[in-house]
């Protein structure tokens, strides 16, 4: 197995004449936490949509564990082990916290529709496993005492957390987090940083995240890719990226004299 869980080569996405993502290449290391940063409209979320199959790729390659996944159906990519959260939270709003996670556990059961309708032994056995798995996930993520609350009645921070739990229910090998700290105060952001590191250790997965909170990005990302106008601007460790003059220019303006 290669040391890179995800390899992106020459990825390009055009919407009509606009190249939202233009010839971007980067790798995500196995077991690492990588960050994707850049100003608004740089094409970060578009890259997530391309990796997870929500958008069709115009040109370029995406390989997950050595397997080409560009233009594969999103649900198949999820089945392979790539899953994500959304910038604007997309929970199953009218379902309870428990049911949100239980639904996402579905790939751990194999019983068919006739088996479900006739309530055959395999249905009962596997359904029990699913419920146990969902309970386990809620427990270790600290949502167990909220399990019966309707998802959209949760406070904002917990909704984000629930979305991560739902993603973990798929046993992903690569977790994509789209602005997980959006709308969080510094305290919550710090909690989230710990949570992400914990998840990585416990579930043995790799993380790629989009974030604007520089504390979070610089704090936990071992590898950072900087985008601007759909193109890769810079890449490297936190220190290397933050001292790159091109990055400073994109973030702070041309002369660097203006205090932002």
């Amino acid at each position: 197995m290669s040391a890179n869980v995800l390899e992106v080569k020459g990825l390009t996405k055009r919407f009509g004449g606009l190249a939202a993502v233009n010839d971007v290449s980067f790798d995500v290391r196995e077991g690492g936490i990588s960050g994707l940063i850049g100003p608004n409209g740089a094409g970060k979320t578009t890259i997530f949509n391309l990796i997870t199959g929500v958008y069709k790729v115009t040109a370029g390659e995406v390989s997950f564990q050595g397997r080409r996944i560009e233009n594969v159906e999103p649900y198949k990519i999820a089945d392979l082990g790539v899953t994500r959260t959304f910038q604007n939270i997309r929970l199953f709003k009218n379902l309870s916290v428990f049911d949100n996670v239980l639904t996402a556990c579905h790939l751990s059961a194999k019983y068919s529709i006739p088996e479900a309708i006739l309530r055959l032994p395999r249905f009962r056995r596997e359904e029990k496993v699913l419920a146990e798995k969902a309970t386990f996930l809620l427990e270790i993520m600290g949502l167990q005492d909220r399990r019966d609350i309707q998802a959209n009645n949760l406070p904002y921070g917990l909704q984000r957390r629930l979305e991560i739990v739902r993603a973990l229910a798929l046993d992903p090998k690569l977790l994509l987090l789209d602005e997980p700290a959006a709308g969080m105060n510094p305290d919550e952001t710090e909690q989230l940083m710990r949570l992400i590191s914990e998840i990585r250790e416990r579930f043995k997965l790799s993380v790629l995240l989009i974030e604007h909170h520089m504390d979070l990005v610089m704090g936990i990302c071992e590898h950072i890719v900087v985008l601007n106008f759909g193109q890769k601007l810079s890449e490297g460790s936190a220190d290397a990226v933050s001292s790159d003059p091109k990055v400073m220019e994109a973030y702070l303006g041309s002369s660097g004299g203006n205090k932002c």
Partner: protein
Amino acid sequence: MDWTYIQGILMLAGINLIAVLGLCLLTGFTGLFSFGHAGFMAIGAYIGALMTVPPATTAGNIGGFGLPFVVGIVAGGAAAGLVSWLLGRITLNLKGDYFCIATLGFGEAIRLILNNVKTFGGARGWPGVPQYSTVWAVLVVDIVAVLFLANLVRSRHGRNMIAVREEELAAQIAGIDVFKYKMIALIVSAVYAGVAGVLFGHYMTFIQPKMFSMTKSTELTIIVIFGGLGSISGSVLGALVLTALPELLRAFDIWRLVFYGAAVILIMISRPKGLMGGMELSPAGLRKVAAARRARLAFKTEALREDAAEGLRAEEAAPGGKA
């Protein structure tokens, strides 16, 4: 009111219920609206009749195969299911409203085709369908239909359909084959409508394309919404109430349908989520409602306690001052 009359209403309600249960899965659980399910009922009714009507003896009679009722039910349901599979392959990739329009066109197309196909009597209809639908037959089919649906909904497959209704994109990212589950919901709903059509034809003993117009499709969808989206018990209640209501309103004579409409509007205003509003009248369903209520309460108390604690802290920080 004599027993035959009441029995007739109950049978119509029971027959409607079968079609409504199918739509309950499609609309209430999977989130796809249809205005063409009378089309599937028509397919069921005509194929079912074709199976059971005895072979023609005199010229001018429309003959069938003279097979037992069970064969008619199975064939009617299967034919509707098969057609829905074809329809689904073409239309299920369409987004929400467009799918709805496509089903509307489908329902009308079926009716118009039957109107013009002379083999089955065309617009004049097909008389002489054997009267096989009894109260017991309808009751048995109803019970089986409810059990199947309840078991399907409370499984991973049912949860996947609900996920499609709630948030299609998130469902896909969660590894759910959205197209497949929409297709399953459509086929199941069409089979249910087809079976309802067979029972309807064998109750009326006469079928005519006019019976399966858009009004019928709309009626079915109204019952599902009226009962409450995502609730099987709601659909059962809705089918009973809305089938009986026009009969109870017979006293109003020509104003009957006006009162019917007004009653539906009034109930929808007072209960915007339908009669049952997504809840189920079953032990598990009631437990769920109770748990959700408890959780909400606990959550509120906790928030209040936190607020109070914060107030106390503020007071400690500035003693005597107004916090």
